[in-house]
Each structure stands twice: as C-alpha cells, then as structure tokens.
C-alpha cells in the first residue's frame, strides 16, 4: 500500500517520467528534473497523501525512496 501510494506521488511530481513499478532504488538525481526543488515538492505531496509531517531534519536528510518508505512506516 505504501509503495503504491508513494509511486503515485512520484508520478504526480514527475509527470513526464516513466516511473517503474519497482521504486526502491530511486533517489534525488535519479531523473534529470529531480533536483532539490522537485524533492521538496515530492516530500510535501507525501506529507499530504500520507497525512504525516516531517521535521526539518527529516526534510533535509531523506534523499532516497527507501528511506522515505521506512520513515512513513514509523509514523
């Protein structure tokens, strides 16, 4: 469930990329357009869709999808 929803967030944030079903290895820089601004927007969308809030530290340290998945599980 978490991976599916997270993948939807990726699709919404990067509408022009083909997002594979397996998102485990994706991280900042995986696509050309995945810069820090896009990453910020991704995290804000994740917050909305999962109804969670990241701390300022988490916002700066979470760079990989695998990390985000773990964080969501804990919240």
């Amino acid at each position, binding site marked *: 469930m978490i991976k599916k929803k997270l993948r939807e967030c990726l699709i*919404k*944030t990067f509408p022009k990329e083909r997002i594979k079903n397996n998102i485990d290895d994706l991280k900042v820089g995986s696509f050309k357009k995945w810069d820090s*601004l*896009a990453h*910020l*927007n991704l995290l*804000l*969308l994740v*917050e*909305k869709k999962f109804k969670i*809030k990241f*701390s*300022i530290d988490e*916002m*700066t340290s979470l760079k990989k999808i695998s990390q985000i998945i773990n964080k969501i599980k804990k919240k």
Partner: protein
Amino acid sequence: MAQNKISISSTSYLIPNHYAWNEKFSFTNKLDFKFVNNFTQGFYNSPKENTLFTAIFINDLIDENKNYKNKDLKKINDSIINLVKFRLRNSSSPLILFLINQRGENIFDYLSTKNMIDENFENLYDKLLFLSKKHSNFILLNFNSIFENSNKNIFDKRNWYLANCRLSSYGHELIATSLKKILTKFITTPKKVLVLDCDNTLWGGIVGEDGINNILLGQDGIGKAYVDFQRKIKKLSQQGVLLCISSKNNTKDVMEVFNNHKQMQISKNDLVSIKVNWKEKYLNIKEIAKDLNLSLDSIVFWDDNPLERNKVKKFLPEVYVVEPDQNIINWPTQIENFELFSKIKVTKEDKNKIKQYKIRSKFIDEKKIATDEIKYLKSIKLEPKVINLNKDNIARASQMTQKTNQFNLRTKRYSMNDILKLNKKEYTEIKLISLKDLYGDHGIIGLMILKKIDNYSIFIDTFLISCRVFGRYLETWMLYEIKKICKKKGIKKIYGEHIVTDKNKTICKDFFKKHSFKIDNGKFSWKSPGSSVYSLRQEELNNKMIKIYD
C-alpha cells in the same frame, strides 16, 4: 490565450510546482504559472500580456523587532504603491494582489494598542483599495479575511526555516484555489443574465396540469427546497444579476403563480424579461439577448429538462447551460456557489461584444434553424410506438383523459368504463402512444380515439399528448399514424375538432393548419358549439417535421 499565462511574484518564497498549483480547476484550460524570483522584478519585467499575481506578506516589509518612524512606514508603503502603479500603467492585463498579515501569537502585542504591523497593513490596504476602485483590472484581496475563518494553519514555521517560505501546503492550496477562482471570472465572460424555466425549476410540478394549488412550493419537503432555491435567486438579482423567464406554458397559468401564490419569493418586478409561450427556448433566449442589448455569452440558463437544456446547448453554444444537481435539495447551494456571475465592472470588451452581436443577429436564417432542428431531433433517436388498448393500460388511458389539459384537442374526460364501452363499438379505434428516446423511456404519453363517421370518413374524438414530451413534434407522427390507419381501412377523409379552452388554446392553436387541414364550415351533428372543425383528405397530410421520424 495570453490570459492563461500568469506571472507570480511574492515578497517571500512561494514554492514553484507545489502540487497546489497543478490541481485542475473548473474551467479546465491549463494555467501556465511563471514564478519570478525577485519581487520587484515581477512588476517590472513580467510580460504585459500576462496576468500578474503577487502575494505581499506585510511581515516581509516590516521587521517586528525594529522601531519605525511614521515616515519610514510611509516610504515602505509608497514603494509598493509605486510598483502597482507602474504595472497598471504598462499593462491592462489583470493584476491580482493578495495582502497577507501573519499575526503573532503573543496576545499582549494586540492588547489595547494597535500593533504596528496591523496598523501598517490597514494603511497599505486602504491605499491599494483606492487604486483598485479606479482600475477594473486590479483585484485586491485582504487574504486574512479568507483564511482567518479556516481551522487549518496557512503558515508553517518549518517551511520558513527550511525554504524562506511562510506558507504551509494548505496555505499554498488556499492561495492557488482563491487565485483560480478569481481568474475564472477574467477568462470567461462574466455572466449578467439568468434565464429560468418555471415548471419543476421554480416550483415542483407543472402548473398547467396540476393547478396553482398543487404545485410544490412551500414550507415542507421538496416545496421548501424550491422556496430556498428562489431565495438564492432573489439574492442574485439584488446583486445585479438580471432575471428572466423562458417557460413553455400559458401566460395565464404562470402569472397566476407569480401574482397569487403566497410562497413565491421572486416577484414579477424582479424579472426583466418574461417569455411564456410555446416557442423553442433558444428562440426566446436569443430575443432576450436582443432586448437587453447583451451578448449570448453573458447568459446563464437553468432548466430541469435535459431535452430543453441540450437544445439550447446545441443552438446557442455561447449560452452557459447549467447542469443542475440530480437532487433538488442541492440546488440552493449549487446556485449560491455559482461563481461566474459578474461582480466586476463592465469592461470595454463587453461593450464591443454587444456591438458585434447586434451585427451578427441580423443574418440569422430561420430556415436554416429548422433544418438544424430536424438534424438535432433525429439524433436523439425517437422511438414512438402505437399500442392497442388492453386491460393493463386502460387505467392509464382513462387517467390521461382526466389529467391532460394542455395538448388536448377536445378535453373529453373518460372513465375506465367509458373507455371500455367505446372500445366495444365497431366504429371506434383507441390507440395509446409510448415513447423512448435518448432521454429515457417515457412510457405511455399519448392517446388517440378515432370514430368512423361513414365508410369514407373518420373523426378524431380524442387526441392528447402528455406535456412531459413536448418539443418532439410527436403530434405530427401521431397524425401520420392516423393516415396509415385510414389507408388500411380505405378511409379518405379525416375530420378534427379543436374545442378551445384556456389551457389548450395556445398550444393547440395552429395544430390543424400546420398539417395542411382546412377549416370546414359544414354542418355536423357531432360539432360542439363555438368550436372549429377541420378536415383533410388523408393523402394531403403534410408537415416537414415528419422527417424527424423517417
């Protein structure tokens, strides 16, 4: 269209490509947001065809920890005013400004004295308000009035420390939605006129059939919803929306409701145009536009009947046809939330449109409209059927003679027994008519009773159609079915009579004439006093609208 390009600048960071900007909005044209990095550059360098949206956080202009002299505050405000004036001088595109005050949480800052930031906010707002009154393309919004009632926070400290952005995601959502709502008014022509149907729109039921005492309009149930709906409409008229009626009805019936029904919220005086007749509604709406000197795209049309709505959509594509909610109890909210009515001043463009429309309307070809109508009605796949009388439908046959008043040539009332007796007679034919089309299965909606006068002639004793299915030229089809029956039985002549009543006098007026019948002044034993009798040789039956049913 350039109006879909919006430059965005703000005093502190608004996050570009935040999901809030990408969410679709009602009028579906994609909006192109261009974020300008530097606040003042937004005013100086945004292309003049673009709409400029700017968010000014008063907290960005003033440092809470400093002490300002009055002249310093004046300087700050004047710099903003000058930016706005510069933009207004160089561009006639919309300039939308949200003024935002992020108030602190220390109540002692607000106790008994006006906080400096609050005071400057009011000061700046007043000056900008003065400018907005002079320029119809300058939209000023005190954004605090929007969010102070919401229970979610639009500000977010984390985002401030992370990205110099004062707003939370919710704050972005609120700003984006408010902006889109405002843009809707600029991209689509503001609507000035509301054209309303009557039956099942302003009240429940059909006044011509049910009578003023049985329509639903009052303090309970569905009647209450209609009252509330009328109240919201009345409010709109008080805000300047022009109200009109286009109703397929007898004037007398409709005016009786307006004059005498105690629960009517809308009065005759609230209406600027009353078109109650049996003409097609799109013709009435065209007339309304001409009468009021307004273009068709400033008109909104509300009608419960999908056939009527689709006809207007088809023939007058510029008119905004509302899709009313399936449930009448949602109508008051639906019309209250309808955002396209103009609250913004009439612009030069509107006046030009009026001129263009006047020129166009001179060349509308009435004949072409008839051909279009035939095409349109063919497309809704009308399937009428003739059904013989049987024990299952005899009740319906009798009911129709008792209840149908408008399209009823002779208004003869028959009980079930009467019908049984008639059916037994050799010289009588009783036929019911059912109808299916794209709008649904309407069931049994017509009745014909034919009586043989002699070996070569028949008389139309009863000919009626339920008002539910008006507008489809079903009467023409029914007459051609009579012609078929005549051919089969060797009948040469058809006689018909129109016994004029208040209820049928308009809608049945030229019925026989339109189908090539001629007035027959002969003496007939069955003729009713004061009525008009018509006759026709069956092979002469003619009406071009039968093409719909080919």
